[in-house]
């Protein structure tokens, strides 16, 4: 039932664009499941990690149905995935102990359109949702989210600038330059090298959608990091066209990994989690640089009139700021802790995987979700919608 509604509401509110926010969250679930299957992580780590990600149901109602909130419960909504039941032990119990509330997790997938439909129909069953910066801004504009109560949630425990009015970061991830060190003459330093077909021959991979990629195009064109926003879409697209004959696009995280495995590409702009997996399975032959990466975050949202009340939802988010939980997630999948304090807890030999380490952050650009959701001035489209059109246009021309 829940899924039907999800689809329906996506259509009711077509303007609510997920902005690809949730794709990364889904990919994380996939990565964890793969690693679990290979025996690289224990089921317990897996479950704890997904817990920290806010992605696994603690006590899912059977059949994946909507968790209906009762008194004394808090419903956290995320992107589902395998091994759902065990989450409760890992994450639900601690919060239950500290709050006295029962934690119920719903793995339906908190599509922005669904959150909006719930609030507008006055039938809110969710307390805390895992979305992305784009969705957060759209929902905030639509007035269906509660402002984050920063007297309960500690702003200092959130990587700036991902402390939005109606949402705050629960983890971070980056688009980075990954390369197969055996097939490039020397390590590429940044996107200018990525665009240099003569010095670095071979095919490259970029994402099918423009989010994160246009920033990369502009850096390749020599635009300084601090001047990337507002993005000049035409300039970015023109830069893409320069190398497009040598570009293979990826649609999903696993596809980006596959392109490296099969040797079809020598370089690519990937999610750092996928680059990390490639790094491991190739014994370091495939690696990446943080230089000129684009860092962004997953977001907690609280819908208006949430059943458990504002305080309980904020308490939950606050408890999820615990660095220890975020480290467990990081160790399992490489997702960056959203709490800067957690950066120090990362073991030295693991710091190269963490996008949130100060030395890594210094090399990267922070994605600006505000720009994506702003009006482009063309046919009433947002910058996000317009850039998608132009990106597809360039790729297929």
């Amino acid at each position, binding site marked *: 039932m829940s899924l039907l509604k999800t689809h329906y509401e996506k259509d009711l509110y077509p303007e609510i664009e997920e902005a690809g926010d949730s794709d990364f969250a889904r990919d994380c679930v996939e990565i964890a499941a793969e690693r679990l299957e290979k025996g690289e992580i224990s089921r317990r780590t897996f479950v704890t990690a997904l817990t920290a990600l806010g992605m696994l149901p603690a006590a899912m109602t059977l059949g994946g149905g909507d968790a209906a909130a009762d008194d004394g419960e808090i419903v956290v909504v995320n992107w589902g995935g395998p091994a759902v039941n065990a989450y409760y032990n890992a994450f639900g119990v601690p919060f239950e102990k500290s709050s006295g509330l029962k934690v119920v997790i719903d793995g339906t997938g908190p599509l922005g359109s669904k959150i909006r439909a719930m609030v507008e129909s006055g039938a809110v069953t969710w307390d805390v949702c895992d979305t992305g910066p784009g969705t957060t801004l759209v929902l905030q504009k639509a007035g269906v989210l509660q402002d984050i109560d920063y007297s309960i949630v500690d702003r200092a425990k959130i990587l700036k600038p991902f402390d939005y009015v109606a949402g705050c970061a629960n983890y971070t991830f980056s688009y980075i330059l990954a390369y197969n060190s055996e097939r490039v003459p020397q390590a590429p330093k940044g996107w200018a090298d990525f665009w240099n077909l003569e010095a670095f021959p071979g*095919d490259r991979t970029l994402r099918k959608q423009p989010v994160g990629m246009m920033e990369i195009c502009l850096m390749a064109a020599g635009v300084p990091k601090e001047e990337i926003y507002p993005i000049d879409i035409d300039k970015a697209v023109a830069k893409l066209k320069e190398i497009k004959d040598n570009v293979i696009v990826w649609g999903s995280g696993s596809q980006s990994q596959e392109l490296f495995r*099969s040797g079809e590409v020598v370089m690519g702009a990937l999610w750092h989690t996928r680059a990390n997996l490639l790094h491991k399975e190739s014994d370091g032959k495939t690696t990446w640089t943080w230089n000129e990466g684009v860092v962004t975050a997953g977001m907690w949202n609280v819908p208006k009139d949430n059943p458990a009340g504002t305080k309980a939802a904020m308490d939950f988010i606050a408890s999820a700021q615990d660095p220890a939980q975020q480290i467990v997630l990081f160790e399992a999948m490489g997702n960056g802790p959203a709490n800067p304090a957690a950066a120090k807890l990362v073991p030295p030999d693991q710091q190269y995987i963490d996008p949130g380490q100060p030395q890594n952050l210094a090399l990267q650009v922070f994605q600006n979700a505000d720009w994506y959701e702003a009006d482009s001035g063309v046919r009433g489209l947002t910058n996000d919608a317009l850039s998608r059109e132009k990106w597809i246009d360039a790729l297929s021309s």
Partner: protein
Amino acid sequence: MNAALRLRYWALIAPAILLLLIFYIFPLVQVLWLSVTEPVFGLDNYAELWDRPLLHRIWWTTFRICAITTAITVVAGYAVAYAMRLVGEQQRTWMLFCVLLTFWLSVLVRAFAWVMLLRTEGMINVGLQEIGLITQPMRLVRNEIGVIIGMVHFMLPLAVLPIYSNMTGINMRLMSAARGLGASPIRTFWSIYLPLSKPGIIAAVILVFVFSLGFFITPAILGGGRVMMISEYIRVSFEETLRWGQATMLASTLLFAVLLTLAVFARFVDLKKVFGAR
């Protein structure tokens, strides 16, 4: 037949017709309707067809690929069908077998096999490199070449079967007579056999062109996001940019293009025969 009996037979027809009306035609009409109401009432979505170069290019790509596919498929299919008329029973059975096997095999399996064969690290490139014919891998997939190879492969049985079925009706004695009168083999073929096989060719052209227009799977897989045909862009509008108005407008135009093609060809052949319904 009395009225009661007629009514009884209509009762047999009714369930299927009603099912189709309610669960198929109604949703189709709804989609056509959405194209003039989403996001606001009017022809704004259709105006984009004129205004936006992207849409011009997508339609042009679609027609170009369809035309090339149709041309290659019909010529190659004709050769197979003609050969089937020339050879003996046994060889003909084998030929037909190859055609039917392709026809019945899952379209996804075929697309998968082509990806495997054509990619830069695929069998064809590796094989050619090993025997030293090429030094650099050729780009055979994730571009128009790959899409056309896949589409021709999919459509070939749709061309061979109607052409062959038409050819079985051609009286070979006409050819002998022409030869007896001193016409060269090529001339006999050109002025007698080819015109006689025209209905088969037209049927093949219709089938291949119409199915190519709205073809989704093969371009999506072998185009690798780089070849934007109309079906793929409908998916993008629907799934990625969530623009229902645009998606339904393009769907309506695609449907219209198909109907137009059929209407044009209906003047030359019996369409029901082409689709095997007579």
